[in-house]
């Protein structure tokens, strides 16, 4: 059963979508239950995956670093003088993607509950929702660049409609902006993909066909299965715009994934998308889609171009630092709660860039942990923002005050998650940041001042969170519209059901982070060492 587990996890929601398609439109509750069931099964499968993942594996190179590998011929065309085009359904996970899959299945499950009282054409919503879940999990497990790219693009479609149809007032603008922005990003990735495809060959198939069989498999690319005269082959350093071609490919990938991350200069789609997205969707958007960007750095940018990564650590760290500080500053200037949380996500994602740039085990581990913990925290924060929005249809920080009086339990959760997000030790936010700082200050690639300036990030995040907390929750109870005062009832059972597991997870990860970092540690160590060795190998050529 465990050999096809991964495919089952990826495509089970798609199966269920087929079932949902045939259901008549009216049966909202049934559709919701089916969706809950589907994501629930997916969650259970991923838990099985987590426990049957063998953490003691000490891989030597990328080809045997992955477990639960499934490979099947998908497309193989004979293109005349271009030799064989070989794309195969190649799926597998290592520690990093394992965590990402567990995070996404959990958040998808939570997302279904969060969108329980949805009324507008429920069937369409949940079909898109399940497609989204397939593509997200598929993206994390794909080991073939083409397959990764297909899932990467496939994710945009449902997201575009989910924001575009069920979103807030300015949803049209926001969804188009989101779509085009990420699409442009994926164009860069496509360019690099093709470049890589043409310069990597799959030796296993070559003997049958006596010609050069190019391949998309990431494992080949990472293990350096380059043909001698490929464009991106490390040795032949063709200059382009004054830089080694591999550097440019790496930069293109970084920009593509930085848009998704988002990093500062290209982040402006995130606040709009979040403000307009419905609650459950912005939970997914913050929890999962941002992690695809981060995962892309880990698996693709750093995996395939370690030499470029090593020599460009300085600028990447600078961007990471700017994201942290700049994201924090702009968050403070927002007056819409959801927009503030969106900007805080930009700031937290900056830690990932910084962690990766430090190029050591603590930094990479910190970046990975930050992704997981940010997934839970920002998911909860958006649910909380959604709670206010569902009750009053408005999220302005200035439009409320003294909510603690009216909704004490709600305020309790807000305090817990605000403090988790600003990095109070004992909650999961701190662990990620602490490891990233450890990595950034201890790394011998980065100057010390970058780490020190980013530490100011935790002060800024404390500032805007507490300021928002004070304006909205403390002081006399007042709401801008008199009618809202009646609707400000405290958390309902459903919302509690959402928030309690997230709170437990955040506290658990804060106290005992080794629960998830332990099993994954080998793959992080392997990832960093392998990147380092490969970079020395390539730089030597």
């Amino acid at each position, binding site marked *: 059963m465990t050999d096809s587990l991964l495919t089952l996890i990826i495509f089970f929601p798609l199966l269920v979508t087929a079932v949902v398609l045939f259901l008549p439109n009216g049966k909202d509750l049934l559709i919701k239950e089916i969706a809950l069931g589907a994501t629930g099964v997916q969650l259970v499968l991923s838990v099985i995956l987590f426990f049957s993942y063998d953490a003691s594996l000490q891989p030597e190179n990328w080809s045997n670093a992955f477990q639960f590998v499934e490979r099947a011929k998908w497309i193989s065309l004979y293109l005349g003088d271009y030799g064989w085009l070989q794309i195969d359904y190649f799926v597998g996970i290592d520690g990093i993607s394992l965590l990402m899959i567990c995070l996404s299945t959990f958040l998808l499950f939570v997302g279904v509950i969060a969108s329980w009282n949805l009324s507008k054409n429920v069937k369409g919503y949940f079909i898109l929702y399940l497609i989204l879940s397939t593509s997200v999990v598929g993206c994390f497990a794909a080991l073939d660049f083409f397959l990764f790219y297909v899932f990467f693009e496939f994710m945009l479609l449902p997201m575009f409609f989910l924001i575009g149809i069920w979103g807030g007032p300015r949803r049209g603008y926001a969804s188009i902006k989101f779509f085009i922005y990420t699409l442009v990003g994926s164009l860069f990735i496509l360019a690099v993909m093709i470049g890589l495809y043409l310069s990597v060959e799959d030796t296993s198939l070559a003997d049958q066909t006596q010609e050069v069989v190019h391949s998309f498999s990431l494992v080949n690319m990472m293990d350096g299965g380059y043909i001698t005269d490929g464009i991106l082959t490390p040795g032949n350093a063709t200059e382009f715009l004054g830089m080694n071609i591999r550097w440019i490919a790496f930069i293109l990938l970084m920009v593509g994934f930085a848009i998704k991350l988002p990093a500062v200069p290209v982040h402006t789609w995130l606040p709009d998308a979040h403000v307009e997205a419905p609650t459950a969707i912005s939970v997914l958007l913050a929890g999962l889609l941002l992690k695809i960007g981060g995962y892309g750095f880990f698996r693709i940018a750093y995996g395939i171009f370690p030499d470029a990564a090593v020599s460009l650590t300085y600028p990447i760290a600078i961007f990471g630092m700017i994201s942290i500080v700049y994201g924090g500053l702009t968050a403070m200037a927002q007056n819409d709660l959801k927009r503030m949380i969106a900007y805080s996500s930009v700031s937290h994602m900056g830690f990932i860039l910084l962690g990766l740039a430090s190029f050591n085990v603590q930094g990479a581990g910190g970046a990975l942990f930050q992704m997981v913990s940010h997934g839970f925290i920002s998911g909860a924060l958006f649910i909380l923002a959604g709670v206010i929005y569902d009750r009053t249809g408005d999220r302005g920080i200035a439009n409320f005050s003294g909510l603690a009086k009216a909704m004490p339990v709600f305020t309790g959760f807000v305090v817990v998650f605000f403090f988790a997000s600003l990095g109070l030790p004992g909650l999961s936010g701190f662990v990620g940041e602490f490891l990233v*700082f450890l990595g950034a200050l*201890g790394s011998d690639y980065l100057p010390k001042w970058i780490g020190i300036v980013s530490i100011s990030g935790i002060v800024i995040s404390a500032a805007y969170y*507490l300021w928002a907390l004070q304006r909205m929750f*403390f002081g006399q109870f007042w709401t801008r519209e008199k009618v809202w005062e009646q609707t400000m009832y405290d958390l309902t059972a459903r919302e509690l059901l959402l928030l309690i597991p997230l709170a437990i997870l955040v506290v658990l990860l804060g106290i005992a982070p080794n629960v998830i970092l332990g099993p994954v540690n080998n793959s992080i160590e392997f990832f960093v060492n392998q990147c380092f060795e490969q970079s020395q190998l390539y730089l030597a050529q």
Partner: protein
Amino acid sequence: MTLLKIIWPLIFIIPLFSGIIGGLNHRQSLKLSSFGMAFGLFLALILVWMLDEPLILEWKWLESVNFGFSIDRLNALLVLLVYLITLLVQVFSITYMEHDPDQDRYTAKLGFFAFSMIGLLMSNQLVTLFLFWELVGMSSYLLIGFWYQEAGRSRAARQAFMINRVADAFLLLGVIRVFNNGYATSFTETLASGIQWDGFTGICFIIGAFGKSAQFPFYGWLTKAMAGPTPVSALIHAATMVTAGVYLLVRISPALMDWNLQVIAIGGAVTAFMAAVAALTQFDIKKVLAYSTISQLGYMILGIGVGAYQASVFHLWTHAFFKAGLFLAAGSVIHYMHELDATKDPQDMRNMGGLQKILPVTFYAFLICGLALSGLPFLSGFLSKEGILTGSWLWGQSTGNYLVPILAFCTAGLTAFYIGRQILLVFFGEISFAKKMVEPLVTIRVPLIFLAASSLWFWNSINPIDPLGWFWNGYLFADLGATSDQHSILGVLIGSIVLTLSGLGVAYWLFRPEAETARGFKKSNEPVQLAGKISFHGWYIEKFYDQIVRLFSKVVFGAGWFDKKVIDRFVDGVGVSGVVIAKVIGWFDQNVVDGLVNFMASISQLIGRFVTSFQSPKIQIQIGWLLLTLLVLLLWFQFLT
């Protein structure tokens, strides 16, 4: 030994447990949690009594980081102190908070604070220390902002937390540098290995400690912290939390470099002096005590800086008792004033006076603790302060830097003055109101009596003069072997007694009931001349913070504006043009506003319209154009090719 292994984690969990129990049931929350704390106190006593060599408990938290607690004599004693003071405060607040609606939340927060404070005291690994350090900061945030209804209090809580957060950022930086430079990551190892930290790491730790113990640049938050309920101020902002910084410095002092210790000494001395000056002209009863706490903390830190950390710990111990006593007494005064008439500010000394006969027990407690604070002989304050003064004097002689001793001695005098002033203003003079209130026996009187009594000298050492006579001295520092020259020097002894008496005398002369300044005091408002203003506004430290915040928010809104206007516009500019240009260009802009795509559409429409004009419906015209094109082709092939 195994008994200790069982008791130890229990001591750690009990406050949290009692807090939760208290938090859950609304009615008897404070009583229940105080029983829990009493039990915890009993266990702590056993622990202190039976402990001989340190116990260490450690487990792997993260790959390169592990989580560890250790208990040795010093923090066992301090844990006992925390338990004792928390119990007393809880008993006190049973009446103080009796008609406060959300008592359960108050108990839960108190329990959470005690838990995190004990955690801080017990933690051995630096990361664990940082974790509880921040939790203590958070619990103080929650407690200061307990009455969140009033915006002022929650703002004070936020500001307090922010200032702490800034200092904690440095502490975090220090912890990370310890990890990266490969120093020992736990107190026990640093003590054993004796590695010297580099200067910058030391400074980071010092700034962290200064932040928590409200030393020079960071002491603004303690006066703001007075916004919390008085029992909270007594517990947290007098006895326990603020001493965390002192405790940290005592722990890491073996690893600090010499110039770091000098920084500590000077920092402590300067803070002590400034706070003492600031306490001179305050009107709010709690503000005076807050500044005096800052000043006494300055003393302790000064003691560490000059190497007399036994005296500092002793001063920490005695200060906890008499300062808690002072605060609780002030609390009962405020409670009384509040009962009297809620309109006037219960904390303002100007509407107090002559409470001597009305609240006798409070008066005597306040009197004894106040005199202990001022350093009168035969009281605990004198002994511990004496130790620090001797240490600073000896240090001054050995290093030739006499600034620190001078400041220390001046502060001693000033302390006596402002506490004398306070006692006279609050308790003496004519009674401005008649209502007599009998303090509830148990809950208010007992803690006051206990604290007042503990400020007498014989609780702490037989010989009222010798600072080293402290009972616990042998217990705590037996292994270090008390350095002989710590014995009091006659000159220092006499100097400090003279200073204290003169301070009290001047205070009495100025503020005795019949003196015109005392009578004028009731109606006086803020001091006008420079010195008075500096003192009243606490050296304008809070104004300094506001300036930083204003600058900061300007930057923030600049960033917000920048983000909204420039980057967002830049992105929209590609599709939708929104950059504000002069109105004329604006009109042109309007055409581009509906985007490149529509623009394309309009172009093609234009071309379309032009082309269709050829294909007019009239057939003949079409024939005509047909022939014309034929003609053109003909000419082209014929003549041009």
